């Protein structure tokens, strides 16, 4: 089992390195010298050349890459062109906001999604089932910016229940989190429902009934634990989705998070900052996947012993 975990860890690190290389190459094939672009047309050629050499941009891409990785291992992701601060510091302060946002969104999505999914499965084909599944399809189909703007318009602007933007208080996170989680809540509900329905058809559910377990006992003690296995895998997938959605939500609600930082980096043509934010997001997804895999291994004895 430990061997298994080590193997997965190694694989995760390799994928992360691959991500770094890919993003590095993508941002280096853009024609033109980024420094020249940055400084505008009227910049002195000598200054541009000096800056280029100083930042090591005249070296071959592979050398630059290894330098970057070397720096990254020491916690140095370069300096932002546009903001003049170390990328690591910028990410660190933005990460707190994204983390709060994502956690609240996930909490909202999971509580809502799991509960409505269970109810829909147990009361299959009832009005409640149709209602929940309709709502969840609506949730899956609504673009994040639509949810966000609707919430902003009605709850903040019209009813003045929440601040329109900004994160001065935790309440400021509430609407963005709901907007962001709404999407995931839909897909969680649908997955929980379909897995649970599948599992309720399994033979061991009959066995549990034959033992004299009531409806609730069968559901909680026998079905849910098995149903949670695919749902955990989904959790990891949703992490990536949440980070994607965060780009939009953070922009709309003016939250200084990773996503907004990435958007700023693009509009400022700030390559080190863009590289840092995207790579950091990929790292979070990879770590999330690793945790989900490990959790799966702990919860499913069939896999646990096989490895």
């Amino acid at each position, binding site marked *: 089992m430990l061997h298994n975990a080590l193997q997965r860890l190694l694989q995760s690190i390799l994928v992360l390195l691959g991500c770094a290389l890919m993003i590095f190459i993508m941002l280096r094939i853009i024609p033109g010298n980024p420094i020249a672009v940055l400084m505008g047309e009227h910049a002195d050629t000598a200054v541009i050349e000096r800056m280029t050499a100083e930042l090591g941009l005249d070296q071959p891409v592979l050398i630059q890459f290894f330098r970057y990785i070397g720096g990254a291992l020491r916690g140095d992701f370069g300096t932002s062109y546009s903001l003049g601060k170390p990328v690591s510091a910028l990410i660190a302060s933005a990460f707190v906001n994204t983390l709060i946002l994502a956690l609240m969104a996930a909490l909202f999505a999971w509580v809502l999604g799991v509960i409505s999914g269970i109810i829909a499965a147990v009361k299959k084909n009832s009005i409640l089932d149709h209602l929940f599944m309709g709502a969840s399809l609506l949730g899956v189909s609504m673009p994040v910016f639509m949810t966000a703007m609707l919430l902003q318009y009605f709850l903040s602007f019209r009813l003045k229940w929440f601040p329109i933007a900004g994160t001065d208080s935790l309440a400021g996170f509430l609407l963005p989190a709901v907007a962001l989680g709404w999407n995931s809540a839909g897909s969680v509900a649908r997955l929980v429902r379909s897995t649970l329905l599948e599992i309720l058809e399994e033979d061991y559910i*009959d*066995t549990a*009934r*034959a033992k004299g377990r*009531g409806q609730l006992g069968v559901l909680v003690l026998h079905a849910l634990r*098995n149903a949670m296995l695919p749902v955990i895998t989904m959790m990891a997938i949703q992490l990536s989705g949440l980070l994607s959605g965060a780009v939009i939500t953070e922009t709309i609600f003016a939250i200084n998070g990773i996503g907004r930082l990435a958007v700023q980096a693009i509009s400022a043509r700030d390559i080190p900052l863009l590289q840092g934010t995207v790579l950091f997001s990929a790292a979070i997804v990879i770590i999330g996947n690793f945790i989900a895999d490990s959790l799966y291994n702990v919860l499913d*004895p069939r896999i646990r*012993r096989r490895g």
Partner: protein
Amino acid sequence: MSGKTLEIRHLNTSFFTQKGEVGAAKDICLEVRPGQIVGIVGESGCGKSVTARSVMGLVKYPGRVVSGEILLNGTRITGISKKEACSLRGSEVSMIFQEPMTSLNPVIKVGRQVEEVLLIHKKITKKEAKKEAAKILEAVGISDVASRMECYPHQLSGGLRQRVMIAMAMICSPSLLIADEPTTALDVTVEAQILRLMKKLCEAGTSILLISHNLGVIAQVCDYVYVMYAGRIVEQGETFTLFDHPAHPYTRGLLGAAKSLRSDAGLLKTIPGVVPNLLHLPAGCSFSPRCDSCMDLCRSEMPDMLPAGEKGHLTRCWRS
């Protein structure tokens, strides 16, 4: 002891599909007496499992018991509340299923799954339940019980798993055990062991309703047999009578097919035709299209259960 452990009177169980009501078990009358092993035999889809599930109250959606009565030790169990039904299941009547591979919960240790039955029905501590579970697991012939209880189902062989299922079913010493194809998924040597175990249980006082499509299994252990075809009982009688003097052409066909399987000479004998679609049964006797001694009467009217020779031997055939 007198009376009947199980009595089914005119049971009708139907599935309500989009294409209409499908009668899976029709007008079933059946008895199991104390200390008896009673068999139900028939092809797949003939309604034997549905009959068993009706007794347990576990008919799968969209099926349900439409009419008829089921009595357990003289008490009506049709139409009782869900809670009462739960308290009977596992303690008074229990069931083991065909697939020992999938009938145990894959993420719970087998020991706990056995203890669970006790914890549902009896007010005892976990520790006592564990002790009891170990005792019953040993009684069904599992060696090295302590370590096996800590195993997950996928770590046990099919035979062991079925023993665990039996232990689970027997731990509250129910008066009736329903076994739905308990040996179908097992190989022959394990099958023999499991059948022997069931005979022993029966001698210890539990009545058994054994469902199988395998005539050999039925012949080995049953005292009394019901033959089902297309949702109805078509013949019933003491095992020896029925096997020696089958009265219904379907039973004769089954026995003929089984016999030709054992002798190595000649072609495999089969019953011509296929099992009819339950949604659109032929008029008259359901077996008439496949029957080699079919008369005009057979195509227009379904016979009742008629006496066929010896006492207690009944058959649903006009020619008896």
